[in-house]
């Protein structure tokens, strides 16, 4: 405890500390010299390729993969081409970029996953330099080719190669370069002598860092921060320039007095820190530069590699693994010598308390008087998170817990979650696991990702322990881990299908939300179809089973599963698949046994493939639908003959379907069409496509009474409708004479009130009167009222002694002008009531 500050070094306002993470477990004979080395961020694995240039077949280079603590994960002889660069993806896969632009992907146990090429341009001109970078869109690769052009892919999972614009005047390798992500785009920053260029998709822009010291004639090294927000440039004059990566602001510039180009330079700034700082490494010399003129210098015993992290820099040498970072504010407040911060006092108070000294009370009082106890507890908890040594963590947490006792209503969440987090972190930092995460990194990375990483390293028991300990909902936690375990299990080819299936089902039986289909897919990919089918049976989500069943050519089963799921889109998918896979006959037969699929397919055909629809109906002998089909088709035909022939087909089908009505109606339609054509030829009236009623109406209105009459008879139009039609047609023409003749032609089937109404409607009361007398007694009152004859209405009503009608007439009378009528009606009404 007393030595917490022993490894602190001041730089400007802040302190920097270098702590040892591991003594490396590997045994490297030649150190890190002549190695290609790459370590994944967030305490990820380390890949090492010794003497990559060695080409002789007798002594091929060796590729080795280690955990961050140096325990070997894999090692094999490299048999492919010359590797120019190694890098890690965001999900801990190893990328080996070869001279010819081929990228080979291995998992961290050294199993080959896949490969891809960075394009013809790279193949032709070879790789000069390559970089792997991470952005929110995934892992990207940038390459400088022998033609000194940049080829870039932002996401290797969704490979879209971009060749960036040419840099004017660049005929040799740039002095240094870097990739940055800005405005949702990956750009390349490239220095050539003293010139600096930004390359994006469309342009190459020359830029000048504001306030770069003028002595420099060349930028020899550059570094972009972990967040892509900041940029550092190292010049041949020995200056380090630090600024924002958009080159708008300068943060500081420090003279290092070293003019040799550094071996490596990285940022070392923790999030929200006040001070920008970079770490620069030469062969045996490490330097931290910040805002002030002073620098911190370290001597290195051995060849080393810097690994930039979110909140510091890891330094890996052949013997040690260290973390260099700015001392977090909370730790500084507590441990700085003679600090009077509340946290420091609380820690002191707790120490005294443990010694059973009354001084504890004094310290505590001092904090409480300033009412800073809450703050003190928070500081201790936070500082514990940043400390690496479990003993220090415990001391701080005990102090915090002690302080909490004197606070009422202090929210416990922070303390509890910190204890949990630290337990997890100490677990994964353990030598055997070897993931040296800081608390800040852990927060950024999230538990989910950490569990993924553990799973990826096949540390299933630890992952499950963590899930249970952190009480992660089962389907996100334990179930997921178990699924991965199962996926791994099915790849163990030495075990029999039965055994594996049983083992999987026993382990996974209780867990909720397991996706068996994913496990089955894995099994299928390993060529274990039978096992896959066995596993699929455990899958409760029938929809999930479908894609795999299709892949395994179990299409019938896939169809029933799709139907079972109720997801019609899935059914469609299987149906489309079947259609392409089977011959037509079998396909139709299959559908026939699955009515749901059949009607969906019919729907599809209705919109997309009319002819198939016909075939479907044919095969089912569905004559009714065939009839409808032909009727529909007939409306698409312009030519009458074609139309008639389609309608004839419809008639035949309807007859076969024993739908006599439809057959007859369609025959009628044909008859009407023929009639309309004849009329068009003879009289030039265009009636084609009109309904029978409309045809008759037009004929009447143009005076072709005979033809109308013919339709009326031929089509056995009911008298009533025909009378209505003729009546309105004549009234529309105001052909009153013809109307009267019509009225007298025979007894009207619709009565004579409509005659009165049509006349009145056309303001011809004179004509209307002619029909009033013919109206039936029940409608007399209405008829008289229609022509405005109150007297007549009154007479009729009184005659019929109908009280309702009397009231109707009364309601239409005005008391002033129709006094006589009113009196008469009133009398009649009282008479009617008496009786």
């Amino acid at each position, binding site marked *: 405890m007393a030595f917490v500050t022993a490894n602190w070094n001041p730089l400007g306002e802040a302190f920097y500390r270098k702590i040892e993470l591991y003594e490396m477990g590997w045994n490297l004979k030649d150190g890190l010299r002549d190695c290609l080395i790459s370590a994944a961020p967030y305490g990820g694995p380390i890949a090492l390729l010794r003497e990559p240039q060695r080409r002789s077949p007798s002594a091929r280079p060796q590729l080795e993969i280690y955990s961050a603590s140096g325990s070997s994960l894999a090692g094999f002889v490299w048999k492919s081409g010359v590797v120019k660069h190694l890098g890690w993806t965001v999900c801990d896969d190893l990328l080996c970029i070869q001279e010819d632009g081929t990228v080979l992907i291995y998992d961290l146990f050294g199993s080959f996953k896949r490969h891809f090429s960075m394009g013809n341009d790279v193949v032709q001109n070879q790789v000069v330099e390559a970089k792997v970078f991470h952005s929110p869109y995934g892992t990207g690769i940038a390459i400088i080719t022998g033609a000194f052009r940049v080829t870039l892919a932002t996401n290797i999972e969704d490979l879209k190669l971009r060749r960036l614009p040419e840099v004017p005047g660049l005929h040799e390798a740039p002095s240094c370069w870097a990739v940055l992500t800005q405005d949702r785009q990956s750009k390349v920053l490239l220095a050539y002598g003293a010139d600096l260029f930004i390359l994006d998709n469309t342009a190459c822009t020359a830029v000048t860092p504001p306030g770069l010291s003028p002595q420099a004639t060349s930028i020899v090294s550059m570094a972009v921060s972990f967040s892509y927000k900041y940029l550092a440039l190292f010049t041949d004059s020995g200056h380090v320039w630090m600024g924002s990566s958009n080159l708008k602001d300068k943060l500081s510039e420090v003279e290092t007095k070293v003019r040799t180009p550094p071996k490596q330079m990285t940022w070392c700034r923790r999030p929200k820190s006040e001070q920008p700082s970079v770490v620069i490494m030469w062969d045996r010399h490490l330097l931290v530069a910040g805002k002030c003129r002073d620098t911190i210098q370290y001597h290195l015993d051995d060849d080393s590699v810097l690994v930039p992290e979110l909140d510091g820099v890891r330094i890996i040498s052949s013997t040690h693994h260290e973390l260099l970072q700015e001392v977090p504010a909370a730790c500084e407040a507590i441990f700085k010598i003679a600090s009077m911060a509340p946290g420091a006092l609380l820690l002191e108070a707790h120490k005294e308390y443990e010694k059973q000294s009354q001084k504890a009370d004094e310290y505590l009082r001092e904090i409480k008087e300033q009412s800073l106890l809450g703050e003190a507890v928070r500081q201790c908890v936070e500082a514990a998170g940043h400390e690496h040594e479990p003993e220090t963590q415990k001391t701080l947490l005990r102090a915090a817990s002690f302080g909490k006792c004197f606070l009422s209503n202090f929210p416990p969440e922070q303390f509890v979650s910190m204890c949990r987090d630290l337990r997890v972190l100490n677990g994964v930092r353990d030598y055997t696991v070897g993931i040296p995460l800081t608390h800040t990194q852990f927060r950024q990375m999230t538990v989910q990702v950490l569990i993924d990483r553990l799973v990826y390293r096949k540390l299933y028991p630890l992952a499950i322990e963590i899930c249970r300990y952190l009480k992660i909902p089962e389907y996100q936690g334990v179930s997921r881990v178990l699924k991965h375990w199962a996926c791994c299990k099915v790849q163990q080819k030495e075990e029999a299908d039965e055994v594996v299936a049983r083992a999987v089902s026993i382990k996974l039986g209780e867990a909720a939300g397991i996706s068996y289909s994913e496990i089955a897919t894995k099994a299928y990919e390993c060529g274990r179809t039978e096992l896959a089918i066995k596993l699929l049976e455990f899958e409760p989500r029938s929809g999930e089973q479908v894609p795999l069943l299709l892949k395994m050519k179990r299409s019938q089963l896939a169809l029933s599963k799709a139907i079972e799921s*109720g997801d*019609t889109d899935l059914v469609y998918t299987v149906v489309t698949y079947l259609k392409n896979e089977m011959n037509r006959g079998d396909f139709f037969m299959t559908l026939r046994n699955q*009515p749901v699929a059949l009607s969906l397919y019919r729907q599809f055909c209705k919109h997309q493939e009319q002819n198939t629809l016909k075939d479907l109906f044919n095969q089912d002998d569905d004559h009714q639908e065939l009839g409808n089909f032909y009727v529909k088709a007939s409306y698409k035909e312009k030519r009458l003959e074609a139309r008639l022939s389609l309608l004839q087909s419809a008639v035949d089908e309807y007859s076969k379907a024993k739908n006599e009505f439809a057959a007859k109606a369609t025959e009628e339609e044909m008859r009407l069409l023929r009639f309309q054509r004849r009329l068009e030829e003879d009289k030039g009236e265009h009636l084609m496509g009109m*309904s029978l009623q409309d045809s008759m109406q037009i004929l009447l209105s143009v005076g072709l009474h005979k033809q109308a009459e013919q339709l009326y008879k031929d089509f056995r139009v009911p008298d009533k409708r025909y009378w209505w039609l003729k009546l309105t047609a004549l009234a529309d023409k105001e052909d009153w004479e013809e109307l009267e003749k019509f009225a007298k032609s025979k007894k009207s089937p619709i009565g004579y009130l409509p005659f009165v109404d049509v006349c009145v409607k056309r303001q011809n009361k004179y004509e209307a009167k002619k029909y009033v007398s013919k109206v039936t007694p029940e409608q007399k009152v209405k008829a008289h009222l229609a022509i405005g004859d109150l007297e007549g209405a009154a007479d009729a009503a009184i005659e019929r002694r109908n009280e309702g009608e009397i009231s109707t007439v009364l309601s239409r009378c005005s008391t002033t002008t129709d006094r006589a009528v009113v009196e008469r009606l009133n009398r009649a009404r009282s008479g009617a009531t008496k009786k």
Partner: protein
Amino acid sequence: MAAHLSYGRVNLNILREAARKDLREFLDKCAGSKAIVWDEYLTGPFGLIAQYSLLKEHEVEKMFTLKSGRLPPADVKNIIFFVRPRLELMDIIAENILSEDKLQTPREFNILFVPRRSMLCEQRLKEQGVLGSFTNIDEYILDLIPYDGDLLSMESESAFRECYLENDQTSLYHTAKGLMTLQALYGTIPQIFGKGECARHVANMMLRMKREFAGSQTQILPVFDTLLLLDRNVDLLTPLATQLTYEGLIDEIYGITNGYVKLPPEKFAQKKQGEGGKDLPTEPKKMPLNSAEELYAEIRDKNFNAVGAALSKKAKIISAAFEERHNAKTVGEIKQFVSQLPHMQAARTSLANHTSIAELIKDITTSEAFFDNLTVEQEFMTGVDTDKVNTYIEDCIAQKDPLLKILRLVCMQSVCNNGLKQKVLDFYKREILQTYGYEHLLTLNNLEKVGLLKSQITTRNNYPTIRKTLKLWMEDANEQNPNDISYVYSGYAPLSVRLTQLLARPGWRSIEEVLKLLPGPHFEERQQLPPGLHKKRQQGENRTTLVFFLGGVTYAEIAALRFLSQMEDSGTEYIIATTKLINGTSWVKSLMDRPDQQV
């Protein structure tokens, strides 16, 4: 914006907010300026979720309607297609993308499927060679849209046609998914009742989905006690009848779409002094209709005959409130009066609007044609002369009244007679074909397929039994102060709602016999609640039932359910969900086939 959604028994704003959150998240995925290309059908439903302002906040600068050819120019980074997963739309999108100007700066294409992405569509895009052009392909799960404080709709126009005519159960799948989303937000619904084939299918899917997602259950105290799934074809009669509530009549006459109605503008001209001779507006007046408007919430569900009295009462209250200013003496009183002014003025505008609408409707309801039509409907519903050709229908055909009116009446007669005699049916069909054209043969065939028209072959007419047992006709319906749901149709009590009412009390066991006469199975399912979530009902606390109408619901039915919720001793409050709000006309129209109008 949508405060009226939160007032009800169940806060439906939670659902709306969830939907809005998803939308925002998607929009933010496509960083930079964007233009939305709309599948026109979706604009209405989306309006219920988010206004343009929300889209604008997320850098949506332009909006277009999806049509073939080249996309209109827009200087934006992203083009987003908002579409239903339909193949014909995929073809249009492909055409849009392929005819994009190669010389311009490339725009990023995105596609958002509503309500669900579809492999079939993606396959089609692949075949057209454009699948690779999309930066984002996503789905926007919008099944149940909050329509009002107690009303959810899927706004799926063709749901009834698809389910009952085409045997395409896609919308049922969406229904089940929608109900799962609902349960994720409002807790598992412990009891499920249902009647009808589709109801059974939806319930089965729900139970299956619940099994599939075991483990991801939400720990939410259930808000709904019961879910009742009803097939529209259990009650084919109700939508055919003319609705007689205020809202129902607005819908019957002017049609309400996505919560808005368009009215003839003349009645709503601003009558301000001094500008008397100004031009009358020619654009129809578009008005939102929902419970956010206090007056509308009060009168929407009344029988239209009671609306006049309610409006005049309201008028008196408002003018009395304005008179208050004369009594305001002290500064404090005046201040209080002024603070109420905006509210009062809004109330006055609202009153003026609804008085105008009521006048418009009154002109129609007092017409002889309306009266005659209603008389015939009521005759059918009471079982008068349903077995022979009806003279009124005959005359209407002879005078070529609108076909939809004829179809409604004929279907109604058929339903009330449990099918028509072959002779009568053929007569009607022939009359329709001769008068309106032979192309309607297909429509008639459709109506027969869904059971709206049928010929009475063997089965006895069971409608009178159903009518009597379920008391579907109430002789003395009180329109002013209703005591029974039959007020919404001035005598006829909607069958669907009667079933709902009887389920709550005394339970369906009492009407087993009648249930057997209605199509489809009836069933009850229970869903296990996670331990600790069993609700402890307070004394006198009402139960909450979600009634889901598969294939559509009318405003009058909703009114009837609201009436039940408000009845003092009912003990149950209802939330209503449906595939689409319908009326007889829009419903029958959705079943029509017009080969002559095909392209």
